[in-house]
């Protein structure tokens, strides 16, 4: 177990280092000059040079990288070129909103996908199965930028139950979470269906039924737990995607999260904020994937065993 843990954590750290390098290079690879962004077109060349020196942009690349890396270790991500605010403060302000939206979306997705996937598996090749999978196809096909306004029209304008956008009030999360959650539920439902179908044919399921368990009990207590592994992997990936990929949904619903921050920073060419947001999202993916791997190993002892031998 220790060997498995150390290997996984080391590989995650390696991936993180790669991400840090790429994110650092971002400022040097994309077109544009941060100094010009800050001072505008009318700035004098001497002023530009002064600021370039003050920002350390005239130093050799490896020295700049080292300064950037040391800053990261001290949680110093720099300041926004436009607002002048510390980027750490901006992230602290935005991350809880994204985290909250992602968690609620995940609950919506599980709440929708679990019954749909199970019903589709248990009632295979019946109208219920076709209906559930039709919904899944529908959910996957509708883009968020269309689903969002549609839900606003129904939920906020026609019914008046939820606010159109923003994060004020307890019910403000419903529409963005439904928008994000339905797309995820669609993929999850299909995965649950195929996973459960595979398990339903196993010997231990026959044993469970033979000992007199009801069909519902057999499915919930024996089929579902054994079908969890691939579902968990997908959930991990999806959660990473949710945390980093809520950009469109956050823009549509003016949800003050990380995605909206990144979009604003890209539009304004606020390079340090873009760097920090990309780093944050990449780190989320790495951490969630690491946790999924560890959870996977904890759930299925055969995995760590195999890894240990290999």
């Amino acid at each position, binding site marked *: 177990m220790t060997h498995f843990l150390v290997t996984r954590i080391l590989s995650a750290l390696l991936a993180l280092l790669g991400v840090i390098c790429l994110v650092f290079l971002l400022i040097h690879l994309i077109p544009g000059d941060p100094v010009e962004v800050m001072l505008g077109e009318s700035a004098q060349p001497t002023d530009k040079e*002064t*600021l370039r020196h003050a920002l350390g942009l005239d130093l050799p690349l490896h020295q700049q990288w080292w300064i950037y890396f040391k800053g990261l270790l001290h949680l110093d991500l720099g300041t926004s070129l436009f607002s002048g605010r510390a980027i750490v403060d901006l992230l602290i302000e935005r991350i809880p909103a994204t985290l909250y939206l992602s968690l609620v979306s995940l609950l919506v997705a599980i709440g929708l996908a679990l019954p749909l996937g199970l019903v589709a598996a248990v009632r295979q090749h019946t109208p219920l199965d076709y209906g559930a999978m039709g919904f899944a196809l529908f959910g996957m096909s509708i883009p968020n930028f269309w689903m*969002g306004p549609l839900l606003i029209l129904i939920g906020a304008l026609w019914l008046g139950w939820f606010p159109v956008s923003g994060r004020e009030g*307890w019910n403000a999360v419903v529409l963005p979470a439904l928008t994000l959650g339905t797309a995820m539920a669609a993929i999850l439902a299909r995965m649950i269906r195929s996973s459960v179908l595979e398990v339903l044919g196993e010997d231990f399921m026959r044993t469970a039924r033979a*000992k007199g368990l009801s069909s519902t009990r057999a499915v919930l207590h024996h089929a579902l737990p054994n079908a969890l592994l691939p579902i968990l992997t997908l959930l991990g990936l999806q959660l990473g995607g949710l945390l980093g990929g809520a950009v469109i949904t956050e823009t549509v619903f003016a949800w003050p999260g990380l995605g909206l921050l990144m979009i604003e920073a890209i539009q304004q060419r606020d390079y340090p904020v873009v760097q920090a947001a990309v780093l944050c999202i990449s780190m989320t993916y790495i951490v969630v994937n690491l946790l999924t791997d560890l959870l996977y190993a904890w759930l299925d002892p055969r995995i760590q065993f195999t890894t240990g031998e290999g």
Partner: protein
Amino acid sequence: MRISFQEHRDLRPNRSLVCSPIGSAKRMLHGFQLNWRLWLMVLGLISIVGCTESLPDYTLRFGLANSPTNLDPRYATDATSARLNRLLYSRLVDFGEGTIPIPALATWRELSPIHYRFDLQEPRPLFHNGARLSANDVKATYASILNPATASPHRGILQIITRIDTPTENTVDFFLKQPDSLFPGYLVIGILPANLIAKGHPFHDHPIGSGPFQFLERPDDTRLVIERRADGQRIEFVRIPDPTVRTLKLLANEIHLLQNDLPPELVTYLSTHKGITLQQRQGANFAYLGFNQLDPVVGQELVRKAIAHAIDREHIIQFVLRGRARVAQTLFPPEHWAGHASLSGYAYDPEEAKRLLKEAGYDHDHRPTITYKTSTDPFRLRLATIIQYQLDQVGIDVSIQSHDWGTFYGDIKSGRFQMYSLAWVGVKSPDIFRYAFHSDAIPPVGANRGHFADVVADRLMIQAEQTLNRQEQQALYRTLQARLLDTLPYVPLWFEDHYALASTTITGYQLSADGNFDGLSQVRWMGPPSVPPTHLARLYP
């Protein structure tokens, strides 16, 4: 007897019979089924993270497409920040009718061509921290901008200042390197308290000015709350990037006011809606087509003239902009003191365009090809497509390249274009001509991005700036604009109107000529709010 969770699991009679290969997975699922405390904790956590403070109902909400990026006037360059900073800070000089500089905080006298004296008008306003604004604050603000260490983007134009003196508490003297009759028009930056500048106060986060509104809070980057000093009315600016969602929010009365930045069809839709009022006013934001003069195709004056004749601006304004614009012939509208009302431009004439192209050496078999750069904004892209079609009709092939704003603007500033469309926003002082068209103003020194070079135009710009008599100056600027229309570094398109859409629950908002938010000083609720706050008692006794 209290049965613990573990005991309950162990009492299950059939557990050993089921030889599931994934025992721990099962245990985990059982845990989820039974451990309702875990679910309660998750829900509790979500509600703690999710609950945000809601503002009371009497706050008036203003929908914005973009958040203000910097509330420190020394650094703010975007239009939203500039408009908000006008509410929070006061300035020495403002612009009046005909965009002529007029006194705001101070009147001025020209003691010599290089010496201006500004006298602060009494009563001098109080800063939001209670201190009274003085000449020292003015000096400290401009000295801070002129300090290279501040890295202010406004330093460029103000570098003409060599010294600032404060002979009295009410008087500020500015000494210049050289005569510049447009100088008072440069002093429009909000004044900050000198003692806070010295302490390095974070004005970008906590602005302290002497304007009619004071900063209250910024709950997050998408919301900003300010309070009117006269009566305590609160205004919350809410950033809603998506125009459709902004529209829906106004319809749902979640915001009460919108200004500009909507596609024309949404403006028309909202204007016909009961409960929404539309105000419209002619604007001065100048939309144009720019060209790279070094390019072998659009570098030819004949081709640019053909393009000018090929574009049906009247029809685009009527059908695409829904009448909310007027045709432009030059950078300033006719009502500007330096504008040129009698200038006649290029009429829509496809036959003339074809003739000019033929004269330039092009025909049906040898069509000029132009790459047209624009942003990814859907409306700008639609306009580009229409212009592409109209140019195709006279024999010009156009390929459109749309990039995100940062890349597009970066390309334009670096001269990586053949033809592009853009607009000058909020331009008031005629020194823009030198900045945009003088042959010495090639980036990075200026904004002559197309490398336009014309000896006559250069001479007229310099002469106009050095002339101290306003009438002579006006005549020179008019001659210059006629010259620019003849040589066409830009093909002028139109001036887009400003509009404001307001809920009928509010009244008194006056749309300003340059699209600023000064009208918020007079805005009122139609009736008293449902729960009048104590601080509004003066409004609704």
